[in-house]
Protein backbone atom coordinates (compact mmCIF):
# COMPACT_ATOMS: atom_id res chain seq x y z
CA UNK A 1 0.00 0.00 0.00
CA UNK A 2 1.47 3.41 -0.94
CA UNK A 3 1.62 6.24 1.60
CA UNK A 4 -1.25 8.08 -0.10
CA UNK A 5 -3.46 4.97 0.08
CA UNK A 6 -2.49 4.49 3.72
CA UNK A 7 -3.30 8.16 4.42
CA UNK A 8 -6.66 7.91 2.70
CA UNK A 9 -7.66 4.74 4.50
CA UNK A 10 -6.58 5.84 7.99
CA UNK A 11 -5.37 9.45 8.08
CA UNK A 12 -5.07 9.78 11.85
CA UNK A 13 -2.99 6.62 12.26
CA UNK A 14 -0.80 7.64 9.35
CA UNK A 15 -0.11 11.06 10.82
CA UNK A 16 0.54 9.47 14.23
CA UNK A 17 3.11 7.23 12.56
CA UNK A 18 4.64 10.24 10.82
CA UNK A 19 5.05 12.06 14.12
CA UNK A 20 7.28 9.16 15.25
CA UNK A 21 9.54 9.72 12.26
CA UNK A 22 12.16 12.39 11.80
CA UNK A 23 11.20 13.60 8.34
CA UNK A 24 8.18 15.81 9.28
CA UNK A 25 10.29 17.59 11.88
CA UNK A 26 13.20 17.93 9.47
CA UNK A 27 10.73 19.38 6.96
CA UNK A 28 9.69 22.02 9.51
CA UNK A 29 13.37 22.83 10.19
CA UNK A 30 14.09 23.08 6.47
CA UNK A 31 11.11 25.35 5.76
CA UNK A 32 11.78 27.65 8.73
CA UNK A 33 15.48 27.99 8.01
CA UNK A 34 14.82 28.49 4.29
CA UNK A 35 12.63 31.46 5.02
CA UNK A 36 15.33 33.03 7.18
CA UNK A 37 17.95 32.37 4.49
CA UNK A 38 15.70 33.91 1.83
CA UNK A 39 15.11 36.95 4.04
CA UNK A 40 18.83 37.47 4.56
CA UNK A 41 20.46 36.46 1.28
CA UNK A 42 17.73 37.38 -1.20
CA UNK A 43 15.98 40.40 0.30
CA UNK A 44 18.73 41.90 2.44
CA UNK A 45 21.93 41.11 0.54
CA UNK A 46 20.77 40.74 -3.08
CA UNK A 47 17.91 43.24 -3.16
CA UNK A 48 19.40 45.65 -0.60
CA UNK A 49 16.25 45.71 1.54
CA UNK A 50 17.43 46.31 5.08
CA UNK A 51 15.51 44.48 7.84
CA UNK A 52 13.41 46.52 10.23
CA UNK A 53 12.98 45.83 13.94
CA UNK A 54 9.99 43.50 13.57
CA UNK A 55 11.67 41.74 10.64
CA UNK A 56 14.60 40.61 12.77
CA UNK A 57 12.22 39.44 15.49
CA UNK A 58 10.39 37.40 12.84
CA UNK A 59 13.69 35.80 11.81
CA UNK A 60 14.30 34.88 15.43
CA UNK A 61 10.81 33.36 15.65
CA UNK A 62 11.44 31.11 12.64
CA UNK A 63 14.68 29.92 14.24
CA UNK A 64 12.82 29.12 17.47
CA UNK A 65 10.37 27.00 15.44
CA UNK A 66 13.33 25.22 13.86
CA UNK A 67 14.89 24.70 17.31
CA UNK A 68 11.72 23.08 18.58
CA UNK A 69 11.62 20.74 15.59
CA UNK A 70 15.30 19.93 16.15
CA UNK A 71 14.47 18.86 19.71
CA UNK A 72 11.88 16.47 18.30
CA UNK A 73 14.52 14.99 15.98
CA UNK A 74 16.56 13.87 19.00
CA UNK A 75 13.98 11.25 19.94
CA UNK A 76 10.93 11.42 17.69
CA UNK A 77 9.32 8.31 19.24
CA UNK A 78 9.40 9.81 22.74
CA UNK A 79 6.11 11.54 23.48
CA UNK A 80 7.51 13.93 26.11
CA UNK A 81 10.31 15.02 23.81
CA UNK A 82 7.77 15.64 21.06
CA UNK A 83 5.51 17.63 23.37
CA UNK A 84 8.43 19.74 24.61
CA UNK A 85 9.49 20.28 20.99
CA UNK A 86 5.96 21.24 20.00
CA UNK A 87 5.75 23.69 22.92
CA UNK A 88 8.98 25.41 21.84
CA UNK A 89 7.91 25.55 18.20
CA UNK A 90 4.46 26.86 19.10
CA UNK A 91 6.03 29.60 21.23
CA UNK A 92 8.01 30.59 18.15
CA UNK A 93 4.81 30.55 16.08
CA UNK A 94 2.90 32.71 18.55
CA UNK A 95 5.77 35.18 18.98
CA UNK A 96 6.30 35.37 15.24
CA UNK A 97 2.58 35.84 14.56
CA UNK A 98 2.44 38.69 17.10
CA UNK A 99 5.43 40.40 15.46
CA UNK A 100 3.83 39.92 12.03
CA UNK A 101 0.57 41.47 13.21
CA UNK A 102 2.50 44.38 14.71
CA UNK A 103 4.48 44.82 11.51
CA UNK A 104 1.27 44.80 9.49
CA UNK A 105 -0.19 47.54 11.70
CA UNK A 106 2.99 49.56 11.31
CA UNK A 107 2.87 49.00 7.54
CA UNK A 108 -0.71 50.34 7.41
CA UNK A 109 -0.01 53.20 9.80
CA UNK A 110 2.91 54.71 7.88
CA UNK A 111 0.95 54.57 4.63
CA UNK A 112 -2.41 55.72 5.89
CA UNK A 113 -3.71 59.28 5.81
CA UNK A 114 -5.90 58.57 8.81
CA UNK A 115 -4.52 59.51 12.23
CA UNK A 116 -6.55 56.71 13.80
CA UNK A 117 -4.20 54.17 12.21
CA UNK A 118 -1.29 55.88 13.93
CA UNK A 119 -2.61 55.67 17.46
CA UNK A 120 -2.30 52.69 19.77
CA UNK A 121 1.01 51.44 18.42
CA UNK A 122 4.55 52.05 19.45
CA UNK A 123 7.07 53.85 17.28
CA UNK A 124 10.46 52.67 16.17
CA UNK A 125 12.78 51.30 18.87
CA UNK A 126 16.33 52.54 18.92
CA UNK A 127 17.61 49.08 19.83
CA UNK A 128 16.16 45.58 19.41
CA UNK A 129 14.85 43.74 22.44
CA UNK A 130 14.91 39.98 22.03
CA UNK A 131 13.18 37.55 24.42
CA UNK A 132 15.22 36.62 27.49
CA UNK A 133 17.45 39.64 26.77
CA UNK A 134 19.41 37.67 24.19
CA UNK A 135 21.98 40.02 22.61
CA UNK A 136 21.49 38.54 19.14
CA UNK A 137 22.22 41.87 17.49
CA UNK A 138 25.72 41.70 19.04
CA UNK A 139 26.32 38.00 18.33
CA UNK A 140 25.23 38.16 14.67
CA UNK A 141 24.66 41.80 13.68
CA UNK A 142 24.38 41.02 9.95
CA UNK A 143 21.38 38.83 10.69
CA UNK A 144 19.78 40.35 13.78
CA UNK A 145 20.58 44.07 13.85
CA UNK A 146 17.68 46.12 12.47
CA UNK A 147 19.09 48.53 9.92
CA UNK A 148 15.91 49.31 7.98
CA UNK A 149 13.03 51.64 8.72
CA UNK A 150 9.92 50.33 10.45
CA UNK A 151 7.13 50.00 7.91
CA UNK A 152 9.16 50.59 4.77
CA UNK A 153 10.45 47.82 2.50
CA UNK A 154 12.58 50.08 0.42
CA UNK A 155 15.58 48.76 -1.47
CA UNK A 156 18.47 51.15 -0.83
CA UNK A 157 21.21 50.46 -3.33
CA UNK A 158 24.66 51.75 -2.29
CA UNK A 159 26.07 54.37 -4.62
CA UNK A 160 28.15 52.97 -7.44
CA UNK A 161 26.82 49.43 -7.00
CA UNK A 162 26.45 47.56 -10.31
CA UNK A 163 23.19 45.63 -10.44
CA UNK A 164 22.21 42.75 -12.69
CA UNK A 165 19.19 43.14 -14.97
CA UNK A 166 17.15 40.92 -12.66
CA UNK A 167 18.14 42.91 -9.57
CA UNK A 168 17.28 46.17 -11.30
CA UNK A 169 13.91 44.84 -12.42
CA UNK A 170 12.94 43.48 -9.01
CA UNK A 171 14.18 46.54 -7.12
CA UNK A 172 12.32 48.81 -9.51
CA UNK A 173 9.20 46.67 -9.17
CA UNK A 174 9.15 46.74 -5.37
CA UNK A 175 10.22 50.36 -4.96
CA UNK A 176 7.58 51.55 -7.41
CA UNK A 177 4.96 49.51 -5.53
CA UNK A 178 5.94 51.29 -2.31
CA UNK A 179 7.22 48.07 -0.72
CA UNK A 180 7.39 44.32 -1.03
CA UNK A 181 4.17 42.53 -1.99
CA UNK A 182 3.52 38.98 -3.10
CA UNK A 183 1.74 40.48 -6.12
CA UNK A 184 3.20 44.00 -6.38
CA UNK A 185 0.85 45.24 -9.11
CA UNK A 186 -2.16 44.51 -6.89
CA UNK A 187 -0.40 45.32 -3.59
CA UNK A 188 -1.63 41.90 -2.54
CA UNK A 189 -0.15 40.46 0.64
CA UNK A 190 2.66 42.48 2.13
CA UNK A 191 5.65 40.96 3.90
CA UNK A 192 3.94 40.97 7.29
CA UNK A 193 0.86 39.18 5.98
CA UNK A 194 3.00 36.56 4.23
CA UNK A 195 4.97 35.96 7.42
CA UNK A 196 1.74 35.64 9.41
CA UNK A 197 0.52 33.01 6.96
CA UNK A 198 3.82 31.13 7.30
CA UNK A 199 3.51 31.12 11.10
CA UNK A 200 -0.07 29.86 10.91
CA UNK A 201 0.98 27.02 8.58
CA UNK A 202 3.93 26.14 10.85
CA UNK A 203 1.67 26.15 13.92
CA UNK A 204 -0.82 23.87 12.17
CA UNK A 205 1.92 21.44 11.16
CA UNK A 206 3.28 21.30 14.71
CA UNK A 207 -0.17 21.00 16.27
CA UNK A 208 -1.20 18.19 13.93
CA UNK A 209 1.95 16.23 14.73
CA UNK A 210 1.64 16.83 18.48
CA UNK A 211 -2.07 16.03 18.62
CA UNK A 212 -1.61 12.90 16.52
CA UNK A 213 1.09 11.73 18.90
CA UNK A 214 -1.10 12.47 21.94
CA UNK A 215 -4.03 10.69 20.39
CA UNK A 216 -1.96 7.60 19.75
CA UNK A 217 -0.75 7.64 23.35
CA UNK A 218 -4.24 8.11 24.83
CA UNK A 219 -5.54 5.26 22.73
CA UNK A 220 -2.81 2.95 23.95
CA UNK A 221 -3.53 3.77 27.67
Amino acid at each position, binding site marked *: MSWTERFRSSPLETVSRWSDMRWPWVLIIALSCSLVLVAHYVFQVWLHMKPCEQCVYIRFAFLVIALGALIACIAPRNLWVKLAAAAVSLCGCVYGAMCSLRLNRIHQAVRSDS*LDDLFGIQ*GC*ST*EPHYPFGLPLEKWAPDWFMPTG*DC*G*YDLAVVPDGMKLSAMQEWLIGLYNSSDGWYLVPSLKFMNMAQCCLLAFIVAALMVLVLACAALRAR*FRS*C
Partner: protein
Amino acid sequence: MFRRQFVTLTAAAAALCAMPVLAGQPGTQYKVLDNPLPVPAGTLVKIYSYDCPFCFRYDTGVDPRILPRIQKEAGLKFMPMHLESRGQYGRTASEFLAMCMLRDEKAGISIEDEASAFKRAMDAVYFAYHRKAERWTSGEAAFIKTMADASGISAEQFEKARRSPEVVRLADSWKAAYPAARIQGIPAYVVNGKYLIMTRSIQGVNGMVELIKELALMK
Protein backbone atom coordinates in the same frame (compact mmCIF):
# COMPACT_ATOMS: atom_id res chain seq x y z
CA MET B 1 -2.33 7.55 34.57
CA PHE B 2 -0.79 9.38 31.63
CA ARG B 3 -4.00 11.34 31.09
CA ARG B 4 -3.94 12.58 34.69
CA GLN B 5 -0.27 13.59 34.42
CA PHE B 6 -0.89 15.43 31.18
CA VAL B 7 -3.91 17.34 32.48
CA THR B 8 -2.02 18.33 35.66
CA LEU B 9 0.98 19.58 33.69
CA THR B 10 -1.20 21.55 31.28
CA ALA B 11 -3.11 23.18 34.13
CA ALA B 12 0.14 24.14 35.88
CA ALA B 13 1.56 25.64 32.67
CA ALA B 14 -1.63 27.61 32.08
CA ALA B 15 -1.58 28.97 35.65
CA LEU B 16 2.04 30.05 35.21
CA CYS B 17 1.21 31.88 32.00
CA ALA B 18 -1.80 33.59 33.57
CA MET B 19 0.14 35.02 36.51
CA PRO B 20 1.55 38.11 34.75
CA VAL B 21 -1.96 38.99 33.58
CA LEU B 22 -3.43 38.65 37.06
CA ALA B 23 -0.61 40.71 38.62
CA GLY B 24 -1.65 43.92 36.76
CA GLN B 25 0.39 46.44 34.69
CA PRO B 26 0.94 49.86 36.29
CA GLY B 27 2.17 52.89 34.32
CA THR B 28 0.65 52.02 30.97
CA GLN B 29 0.10 55.64 29.95
CA TYR B 30 3.39 57.14 31.08
CA LYS B 31 6.62 56.26 32.78
CA VAL B 32 8.60 58.33 35.25
CA LEU B 33 12.16 58.59 33.98
CA ASP B 34 14.83 57.42 36.43
CA ASN B 35 17.16 60.04 34.94
CA PRO B 36 15.08 63.08 34.00
CA LEU B 37 16.12 65.05 30.93
CA PRO B 38 18.18 68.18 31.69
CA VAL B 39 15.50 70.58 30.47
CA PRO B 40 13.68 73.41 32.23
CA ALA B 41 10.27 72.85 33.78
CA GLY B 42 7.32 73.74 31.58
CA THR B 43 8.54 71.89 28.50
CA LEU B 44 7.25 69.18 26.20
CA VAL B 45 10.25 67.44 24.70
CA LYS B 46 9.87 65.44 21.52
CA ILE B 47 12.69 63.00 20.80
CA TYR B 48 12.79 62.11 17.14
CA SER B 49 14.94 61.32 14.14
CA TYR B 50 14.67 62.37 10.51
CA ASP B 51 14.67 58.73 9.36
CA CYS B 52 11.84 57.56 11.63
CA PRO B 53 8.55 56.96 9.77
CA PHE B 54 6.43 57.42 12.88
CA CYS B 55 8.21 60.65 13.78
CA PHE B 56 7.36 61.95 10.32
CA ARG B 57 3.71 60.94 10.64
CA TYR B 58 3.43 62.51 14.09
CA ASP B 59 5.14 65.65 12.80
CA THR B 60 2.69 66.10 9.94
CA GLY B 61 -0.47 64.77 11.54
CA VAL B 62 -0.34 64.93 15.32
CA ASP B 63 1.96 67.83 16.29
CA PRO B 64 0.02 70.51 14.36
CA ARG B 65 -3.06 69.46 16.35
CA ILE B 66 -1.58 69.12 19.81
CA LEU B 67 1.14 71.77 20.02
CA PRO B 68 -1.10 74.86 19.81
CA ARG B 69 -3.36 73.31 22.46
CA ILE B 70 -0.65 72.28 24.92
CA GLN B 71 0.95 75.68 24.62
CA LYS B 72 -2.35 77.44 25.22
CA GLU B 73 -3.97 75.06 27.71
CA ALA B 74 -0.90 73.78 29.59
CA GLY B 75 1.55 76.59 28.98
CA LEU B 76 4.25 74.17 27.89
CA LYS B 77 7.10 75.12 25.58
CA PHE B 78 7.83 72.70 22.74
CA MET B 79 11.41 71.45 22.68
CA PRO B 80 12.38 69.00 19.92
CA MET B 81 15.56 66.96 20.47
CA HIS B 82 16.98 65.25 17.42
CA LEU B 83 18.56 61.83 17.95
CA GLU B 84 21.92 61.73 16.17
CA SER B 85 22.48 58.02 16.82
CA ARG B 86 19.96 57.08 14.13
CA GLY B 87 20.16 57.65 10.41
CA GLN B 88 23.29 57.73 8.28
CA TYR B 89 23.53 61.52 8.69
CA GLY B 90 22.22 61.74 12.24
CA ARG B 91 24.96 64.01 13.55
CA THR B 92 24.87 66.23 10.47
CA ALA B 93 21.11 66.61 10.87
CA SER B 94 21.49 67.46 14.56
CA GLU B 95 24.09 70.13 13.83
CA PHE B 96 22.07 71.67 10.99
CA LEU B 97 18.87 71.72 13.04
CA ALA B 98 20.72 73.14 16.06
CA MET B 99 22.11 75.90 13.86
CA CYS B 100 18.62 76.66 12.48
CA MET B 101 17.13 76.70 15.96
CA LEU B 102 19.69 79.21 17.20
CA ARG B 103 19.20 81.43 14.15
CA ASP B 104 15.42 81.37 14.58
CA GLU B 105 15.78 82.20 18.25
CA LYS B 106 17.99 85.21 17.42
CA ALA B 107 15.50 86.37 14.80
CA GLY B 108 12.59 85.93 17.22
CA ILE B 109 10.86 83.34 15.02
CA SER B 110 9.15 80.31 16.59
CA ILE B 111 10.54 76.98 15.33
CA GLU B 112 6.97 75.85 14.66
CA ASP B 113 6.44 78.78 12.30
CA GLU B 114 6.38 77.75 8.64
CA ALA B 115 8.83 80.56 7.90
CA SER B 116 11.41 79.33 10.43
CA ALA B 117 14.68 77.90 9.13
CA PHE B 118 14.21 74.94 11.47
CA LYS B 119 10.78 74.00 10.10
CA ARG B 120 11.84 74.44 6.49
CA ALA B 121 14.96 72.31 6.91
CA MET B 122 13.12 69.64 8.88
CA ASP B 123 10.20 69.49 6.44
CA ALA B 124 12.58 69.24 3.49
CA VAL B 125 14.51 66.31 4.92
CA TYR B 126 11.34 64.59 6.14
CA PHE B 127 9.63 64.83 2.76
CA ALA B 128 12.73 63.84 0.87
CA TYR B 129 13.23 60.75 3.05
CA HIS B 130 9.65 59.61 3.57
CA ARG B 131 7.82 60.76 0.46
CA LYS B 132 10.49 60.67 -2.21
CA ALA B 133 12.51 57.77 -0.71
CA GLU B 134 15.68 59.85 -0.92
CA ARG B 135 18.59 58.24 0.92
CA TRP B 136 21.45 60.52 -0.18
CA THR B 137 23.61 57.55 -1.15
CA SER B 138 26.03 59.88 -2.90
CA GLY B 139 27.17 61.31 0.43
CA GLU B 140 26.78 63.92 3.14
CA ALA B 141 27.04 66.85 0.71
CA ALA B 142 23.76 65.81 -0.92
CA PHE B 143 22.07 65.57 2.48
CA ILE B 144 23.33 69.02 3.48
CA LYS B 145 22.16 70.44 0.14
CA THR B 146 18.59 69.28 0.84
CA MET B 147 18.47 71.13 4.12
CA ALA B 148 20.46 74.11 2.84
CA ASP B 149 18.25 74.67 -0.20
CA ALA B 150 15.11 74.60 1.94
CA SER B 151 16.34 76.75 4.81
CA GLY B 152 18.15 79.36 2.74
CA ILE B 153 21.36 78.74 4.67
CA SER B 154 24.21 77.78 2.34
CA ALA B 155 26.35 74.71 2.81
CA GLU B 156 29.39 76.96 3.34
CA GLN B 157 27.61 78.87 6.09
CA PHE B 158 26.68 75.58 7.69
CA GLU B 159 30.24 74.26 7.52
CA LYS B 160 31.37 77.34 9.46
CA ALA B 161 28.49 77.30 11.94
CA ARG B 162 28.61 73.57 12.73
CA ARG B 163 31.98 74.03 14.47
CA SER B 164 30.83 77.00 16.56
CA PRO B 165 30.61 76.35 20.34
CA GLU B 166 26.87 77.23 20.51
CA VAL B 167 25.84 74.80 17.77
CA VAL B 168 28.08 72.04 19.14
CA ARG B 169 26.75 72.64 22.67
CA LEU B 170 23.11 72.48 21.56
CA ALA B 171 23.60 69.41 19.34
CA ASP B 172 25.53 67.67 22.11
CA SER B 173 22.81 68.48 24.66
CA TRP B 174 20.36 66.38 22.62
CA LYS B 175 22.44 63.26 23.25
CA ALA B 176 20.97 63.22 26.76
CA ALA B 177 17.67 62.13 25.21
CA TYR B 178 19.01 58.77 24.06
CA PRO B 179 18.35 56.82 27.30
CA ALA B 180 14.74 58.00 27.28
CA ALA B 181 14.41 57.07 23.60
CA ARG B 182 15.64 53.55 24.34
CA ILE B 183 12.71 52.85 26.64
CA GLN B 184 9.97 52.59 24.05
CA GLY B 185 11.38 53.97 20.84
CA ILE B 186 10.62 57.18 19.01
CA PRO B 187 8.86 59.52 18.68
CA ALA B 188 9.08 59.96 22.41
CA TYR B 189 7.25 62.79 24.19
CA VAL B 190 8.49 63.78 27.63
CA VAL B 191 6.64 66.26 29.85
CA ASN B 192 8.77 68.47 32.12
CA GLY B 193 11.76 66.26 31.39
CA LYS B 194 10.36 63.57 33.65
CA TYR B 195 7.20 61.92 32.33
CA LEU B 196 7.64 59.80 29.23
CA ILE B 197 4.38 59.23 27.41
CA MET B 198 3.90 55.62 26.30
CA THR B 199 2.85 56.24 22.70
CA ARG B 200 1.08 52.89 22.37
CA SER B 201 -1.37 54.06 25.03
CA ILE B 202 -2.39 57.12 22.98
CA GLN B 203 -5.78 56.58 21.42
CA GLY B 204 -6.45 60.01 19.97
CA VAL B 205 -5.44 63.66 19.82
CA ASN B 206 -7.76 64.70 22.67
CA GLY B 207 -6.51 61.88 24.87
CA MET B 208 -2.92 62.87 24.25
CA VAL B 209 -3.57 66.53 25.05
CA GLU B 210 -5.43 65.66 28.26
CA LEU B 211 -2.63 63.32 29.35
CA ILE B 212 0.00 65.99 28.71
CA LYS B 213 -2.01 68.54 30.69
CA GLU B 214 -2.36 66.09 33.57
CA LEU B 215 1.36 65.32 33.58
CA ALA B 216 2.25 69.01 33.37
CA LEU B 217 0.49 69.55 36.70
CA MET B 218 2.29 66.70 38.44
CA LYS B 219 5.34 67.37 40.59
